[in-house]
């Protein structure tokens, strides 16, 4: 699972999250963070992965395939 974020989000926090979640989630933290030049820049953390991985992680796919 790829984790992208804006520059205001601490990479340290994301690494800590990765440790908390463990190897099942296999977080891949994208260290090239997005920056915005704006008076009120947006701030976000996004967890991207393909649909089959979501379904495998959270079960729905397993239910369908069994």
């Amino acid at each position: 699972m790829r984790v992208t974020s804006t520059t205001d989000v601490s990479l340290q926090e994301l690494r800590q999250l990765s440790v908390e979640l463990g190897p099942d989630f296999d977080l891949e933290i994208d260290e090239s963070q997005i920056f915005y030049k704006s008076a009120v820049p947006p701030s976000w953390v996004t967890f991207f992965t393909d649909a089959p991985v979501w379904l495998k992680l959270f079960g729905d796919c397993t239910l369908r395939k069994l």
Partner: protein
Amino acid sequence: MAQIVWGLYLAEIVKEAGKDTWKNRAKIWSATVTAVHRVNQFATALGRLRSRLRSKTRIEVGLPVPNGDDGTRLELEGSDVDELALQLALFVHHLPTLLDLMRKEKFDRSSVASGIQLKLLSDASLQVSWQDPYPNRCLVARQPGTPIHISVSKPYPARPFEPGAICPSYQRASVPATYAGRTSAPPMLHRTQPSDAAPAVSLAKLWPPRMHESNCLKTLLCLRAFHRWQRLDLSRLVPGKEVDFCRWCPAVRIDGSTFPD
């Protein structure tokens, strides 16, 4: 709230169990327990992360469709673990239908102007919205009887390119409110920034004979950025811009910015 998450999975169990053997029902039960455990584990970690982030930071889950930068995103609202778990469960619950929609619409860079936004509505259905890059294809569609509502919003109004304009890049010089780039690849920022440099080169050629008015002293002044500006009315060529020419050097000033700097 956890009961609702369970309910979503149990609904699947009931549906699937009716089609299968007793042997496989045990596997289904085991898989469901694992799935609910993982949803809760992920929601708990996100809840902790939320408390460590600034309040305005959005937490989103999504798919890298149409690509990894402009993906399909669902913002997870709230900080309560059960609330986050429910949103995750609903996201996964809607994924098969969402995938069907993506296959049907053939989402790629030519059909989606930017990312695809997902929103969970109050009735637990999922709203999918995106911008169609082609103005003539603007639609607002809704699929009745399905849990996903589709809305295709109109694209941002594009400025038509006028034949008399200097070059197409000038037409893109309408400055967006926000620039974005990546920390590890600063050149991307320069690519996304509209610039007046290209039209300035073209404009400088409009009045080439002015160089004869210069001399050593005036050139020195120009080198110290003391130009002698002369404004020409070029509103037909570059609408909305104030263009000044230096009478002593090839410098051009567009809206207060001097080229070459």
